[in-house]
């Protein structure tokens, strides 16, 4: 089965109100600890995993994920070792790598896609590769059966959402808010409208991320979308309480989506 097919299956067969996709930073707080944290998230009921590949200049990330990436790099993490973290759970559920464009460009899109597929990844999210620049990476992913899942933002015009939707693979990542990743007290008021706009532009599942941290927020998003992505809160749990805290948090989020 290709990565794209595995993603489709994960969105179709989760039996919840929406698929749960926790984000974890590979190599944070250490290589071994990140493998433990990812395994804990899988055990606790994650349907897919979004796995961060640490990068020196993560423009789309807020303070928590930015600091986690910096700490991972200082602890010796590299994009190649991130693939080992992917490999540790890649057979159990679809892993989508969140990787910045220069890491893909440095290897070359074809070689990067081959390596990711060999490590059991199901797809890529490249947050600084907007639709206009994405074709070479999308073609390289297609050749390996990987999904290049595109992002749309609340600022995206309807014409642009249509273009993005037409070329999407796997799922569409709807960015909930105008800003970087990080926990927020409230869900943004225009979220239903953003999701409805994306849904009109694609047959693929729509997953929502950025600013979702609490179970009740996850539940509210699951009423609008097919997938819920929780990032900074999970990374914070990995930092503060290790794999056990990740297990507890993901269980709680999974129950909220029951």
């Amino acid at each position, binding site marked *: 089965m290709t990565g794209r097919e595995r993603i489709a299956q994960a969105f179709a067969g989760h039996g919840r109100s929406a698929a749960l996709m926790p984000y974890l930073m590979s190599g944070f707080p250490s290589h071994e600890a990140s493998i433990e944290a990812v395994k804990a998230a899988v055990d606790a009921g994650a349907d897919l995993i979004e796995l961060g590949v640490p*990068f*020196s*200049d993560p*423009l*789309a990330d*807020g303070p928590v994920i*930015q*600091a986690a990436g*910096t700490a991972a*790099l200082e602890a010796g993490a*590299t*994009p*190649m070792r991130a693939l080992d973290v992917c490999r540790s759970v890649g057979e159990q559920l679809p892993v989508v790598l969140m990787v*910045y*464009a*220069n*890491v*893909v*460009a*440095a*290897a070359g899109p074809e070689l990067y896609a081959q390596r990711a597929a060999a490590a059991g990844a199901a797809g890529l999210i490249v*947050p*600084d*590769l*907007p*639709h*206009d*620049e994405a074709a070479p990476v999308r073609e390289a992913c297609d050749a390996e059966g990987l999904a290049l899942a*595109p*992002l*749309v*933002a*609340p*600022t*995206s*015009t309807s014409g*642009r959402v249509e273009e*993005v939707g037409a070329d999407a693979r796997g799922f569409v990542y709807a*960015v909930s808010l*105008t*800003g*970087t990743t990080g926990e927020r007290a409230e869900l943004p008021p225009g979220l239903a409208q953003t999701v409805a706009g994306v849904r009109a532009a694609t047959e693929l599942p729509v997953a929502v991320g950025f600013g979702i941290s609490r179970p009740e927020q996850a539940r509210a998003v699951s009423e609008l979308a097919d997938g819920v992505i929780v990032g900074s809160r999970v990374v914070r749990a990995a930092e503060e309480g290790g794999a056990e805290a990740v297990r507890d948090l993901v269980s709680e989020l999974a129950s909220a989506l029951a």
Partner: protein
Amino acid sequence: MSAAVERRFGPYGGRYVPETLIPALDELEREWAAARADPQFKAELDTLLSDYAGRPTPLYRAPRLSEEVGATVLLKREDLLHTGAHKVTNALGQVLLARRMGKSRVIAETGAGQHGVASATACALLDLECVVYMGTEDMRRQRTNVERMKLLGAEVAPVDAGARTLKEAVSAAIRDWVANVATTHYVIGSAVGPAPYPALVRDLQRVIGDEARAQVLELCGRLPDRVIACVGGGSNAIGTFTAFLDDEQVELIGVEAAGEGLQGRRHSAPLATGARGILHGALSAVLQDEQGQILEAHSVSAGLDYPGSGPEHAFLRDEERVRYVAVEDAAALAAFRRTAELEGILPALEPAHAIAWLLSQPGSGGLELLTLSGRGDKDLAEVLSLSE
């Protein structure tokens, strides 16, 4: 001026930014295409540049430097502009554009503080809110400029990530812009970043070369043999070179910072050494490791201490229209002192690299035009502490 605003220079440039910013970049591209063709906008900017900032700047025949080098050396005196460097030309143009676009808030990044001061100055003049991102290490090294920005009414936002210098300040400014894009214009300080910034900054700074080309023809009756400028992100260099690109007989030299030497990693010379990479929204020459992590740059000059370069420079390098060379810290410091002794001018450490390169090439006997992009008062403490 009816041509499109370029998004690419050969393979370089592009818009490698979060999707959230794409509509703002589209808007900026449209607004700039309209503004630069609008006689009223041009008239307002020209008046500010002449009456407020001090354009045109003189082209000065430097007699004692000429004697030392064994050539006729002409200095384009951008150091005489208001706020002390070429940066104010870009800041005034972009802040005027921000007002035209109806933005109430301006953000900027700064390394040495020159672009931050220029942006704060333009915002004071045009009455816009201004936030300047600056690494805490640079804030420590450039305390006077921090105080200047505050006096001008700007908020200086400290950036405490990474090496706490220019690269992190740019990243922090881009993150702010992602979150506040509806109300905010990001005034980028060099010919870097996602399209349309490299073209926008070049369009605003090309007045340097346009003036210099007319001045050298007036003064000497011919074009120079060589045109020399320092390159960090590369705004004064692209601003100088653009007017001469079609003059095939004029050799163009971009001088990067070799820091402690090109053989190690302690330098800021991506054009002279660097692989192709993506930094701050553009594909260009970038200092990076083999897996794509951006490396910290090093230069004694804060304004050149940046691991990337403008995408048009990467293109001009590949086309072999511009030759990029690099000068080490020690040679730049020596040129700083020598220029003071010979001409009574304290150059900024950035153009001191260009002067150092010229001093290393004596006896050409030709006509050399060099852009003195800023004055060196800001560098005095750094130079004195390194000389101890």
